[in-house]
């Protein structure tokens, strides 16, 4: 700044008043975000490089990570959680997002009656607390008090009912589908908005060329909403790999039966805070959190730098 004062006054740029208001307006959000997000994140990353040795916190480099991947028990828990998390994500991608797109496509049909009602009804579960959702579904699916067995009995499907949440082979799928039920409103809303943004002229031009109905959806609408589907996929990815709440409310912190619903979030919780007689281990918890952060970072980077650049965008 002092350079300007000493420079030749003739070539000095026109002095603009300092734009303090930008800083002032940015400050609250920046400060709050730093305090509640950035600092804890940095602190977690730092903690993963430290450990307790003789009750003293000392810098141990990457040894926590080495323990995590070399200790047979920890490594088994971690890979189990990562694998379950992957299945959790795949189920969301295969069920939640296609259903979301399909619902949005149906809602955008102009002749549909009660469209607003459907839209609201499908979106409401997203607004509910996960505690409520978890509790409701636990009750619905309870073999003792639940309405699922008796409802299925009414249509002669009693034989198909099983205590899904209690069986290792079905528990993870059940929990994933509960989560799909809760969050299907989000892809639906985003795609719905994208579909409404498609100009009438494009669709009319398509109709003039004889492209109607299904082929219109596949050839005209779908390519136009691809960027939105990309955004939804990445939101699903981040959401799923950060998931914890629903599994915790439905299956408890042990994520049973036999660890079959254990995802990274629940593993992190049990490791960091401890559970019953198992003591919490903050350094190892932070290590798992760091690995989760890196996984999500890798996924998001892959999307941003590789996939998003290849998606074609159309400007109207």
């Amino acid at each position, binding site marked *: 700044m002092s350079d300007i004062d000493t420079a030749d006054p003739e070539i000095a740029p026109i002095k603009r008043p300092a734009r303090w208001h930008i800083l002032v307006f940015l400050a609250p959000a920046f400060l709050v975000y730093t305090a509640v997000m950035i600092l804890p994140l940095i602190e977690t990353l730092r903690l993963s490089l430290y450990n307790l040795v003789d009750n003293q916190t000392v810098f141990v480099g990457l040894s926590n990570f080495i323990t995590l991947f070399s200790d047979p*028990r920890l490594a088994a828990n971690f890979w189990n959680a990562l694998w379950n998390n992957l299945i959790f994500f795949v189920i969301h991608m295969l069920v939640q997002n296609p259903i979301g797109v399909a619902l949005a496509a149906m809602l955008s049909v102009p002749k549909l009656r009660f469209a607003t009602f459907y839209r609201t009804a499908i979106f409401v579960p997203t607004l509910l607390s996960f505690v409520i959702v978890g509790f409701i579904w636990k009750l619905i699916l309870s073999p003792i008090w639940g309405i699922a067995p008796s409802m299925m009995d009414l249509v002669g499907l009693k034989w198909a009912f099983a*205590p899904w949440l*209690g069986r290792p082979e079905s528990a993870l799928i059940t929990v994933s589908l509960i989560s799909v039920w809760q969050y299907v409103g989000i892809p639906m809303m985003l795609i719905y908005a994208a579909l409404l943004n498609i100009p009438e002229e494009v669709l009319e031009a398509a109709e003039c060329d004889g492209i109607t109905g299904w082929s219109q959806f596949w050839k005209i609408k779908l390519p136009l909403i691809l960027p939105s589907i990309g955004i939804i996929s990445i939101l699903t990815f981040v959401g799923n790999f950060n998931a914890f709440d629903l599994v915790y409310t439905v299956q408890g912190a042990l994520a049973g039966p036999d660890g079959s619903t254990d995802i990274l979030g629940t593993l992190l919780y049990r490791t960091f*805070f*401890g559970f*019953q*007689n*198992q003591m919490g281990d903050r350094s190892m918890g932070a290590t798992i959190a760091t690995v989760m952060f890196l996984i999500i970072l890798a996924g998001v980077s892959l999307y941003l730098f590789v996939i998003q650049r290849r998606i074609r965008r159309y400007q109207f």
Partner: protein
Amino acid sequence: MTRLLKGMLLATTMFAPAGAVLAQDASLTIESWRNDDLSIWQEKLIPAFEAKNPGIKVTFAPMAPTEYNSAVNAKLEAGTAGDLITCRPFDLSLAMFQKGQLAPLNDLDGIKNFSDTAKSAWTTDDGKTTFCVPMASVIHGFIYNKKAFEELKVEVPKTEDEFFALLDKIKADGNYIPLAMGTKDQWEAATMGYYNIGPNDWKGEEGRKALIAGTQKLTDADWVEPYKTLAKWKPYLGDGFEAQTYPDSQNLFTLGRAAIYPAGSWEIAPFKAQADFEMGAFPPPVKKAGDTCYISDHNDIGIGLNAKGKNPEAAKKFLAWVASPEFATLYANSLPGFFSLNSTAVKMEDPLAQEFVSWRQNCKPTIRPSAAIVGRGQPNLDLEMWRVSANVINGSETPEQAAAETQKGLDSWYKPAK
């Protein structure tokens, strides 16, 4: 306006502490996991203490049992924990003492009121220092619906064969679910299952001590046998027991839909409050008639002094009161099923609680095998036993696999003293 506000703020900050000092109140907070007992502490126990000790205010601050240990540890480390810490038995509290978080209580008034066995759960390995006042133990067994037993004209089983014959009979009748237990929460399977019936097989203390000494392994026949028995329970559990939670089991029994509930004595008070039928209890059946019976009589709860507490004098007064026979009587009768560890005999009014405690005369008591010494490492043996017991009942693991897994976990860190 601002000046007025400032004045008020100043006044409150300056005079509020002064007010507190004037009242000369020492306030104590009890950290606990017994949120079920909140009303009993608030309505019966604390008023009884406060009436005798004016000037000391006690607050009972319970939290969720599964979160208690990590939460209270964090509080102790941060220096925000209450003056009184409820102690889990054995290794967990010992770790707190070794970190200097709990104060030694050897010279506390009234600590002499407890036998060495009672204190064993809260004493250092060398037996020299006691760091918590023992409060209560819990006994495992089976609680049954007397009405159901009368309807079916069946008797309380003494041996395992009789037990399974009884279950067959209840199942054939079809009106009642024979056993109210689920595996979803996992801990029921171990606590009400494995720890409940197991002592008969591993011969109580004898087997437990041999396990610690390394002369027995969890893969030995005595330790696998209870898993085999548990696996046989499967057909007698209710429909969909895999997704049945602990509260589900409790409700099935208290609503009169199940005949037998594998129990711990802590259920007595809540069951009394909810069930409208007569209840009885029987100890875990022995293998053959005439065998010595063993029961799990587990030192479960004690109370200690936060070494960095703010009111150590008042807290010690409270602890001395907890060690007194007066407290023992009050506690055992307010919470039937939590049996006093005080050497002074306590008169209990509750017949079901009396039934449980009467087993002590004929059966040899022992504690849960995963609680002491072998419960110190990672993976935690107790949690491992929860998991494999549930697996065995679900049929997703054989008893031998379950035993081998727990032993492998134990071997990974535990080296018995030679």
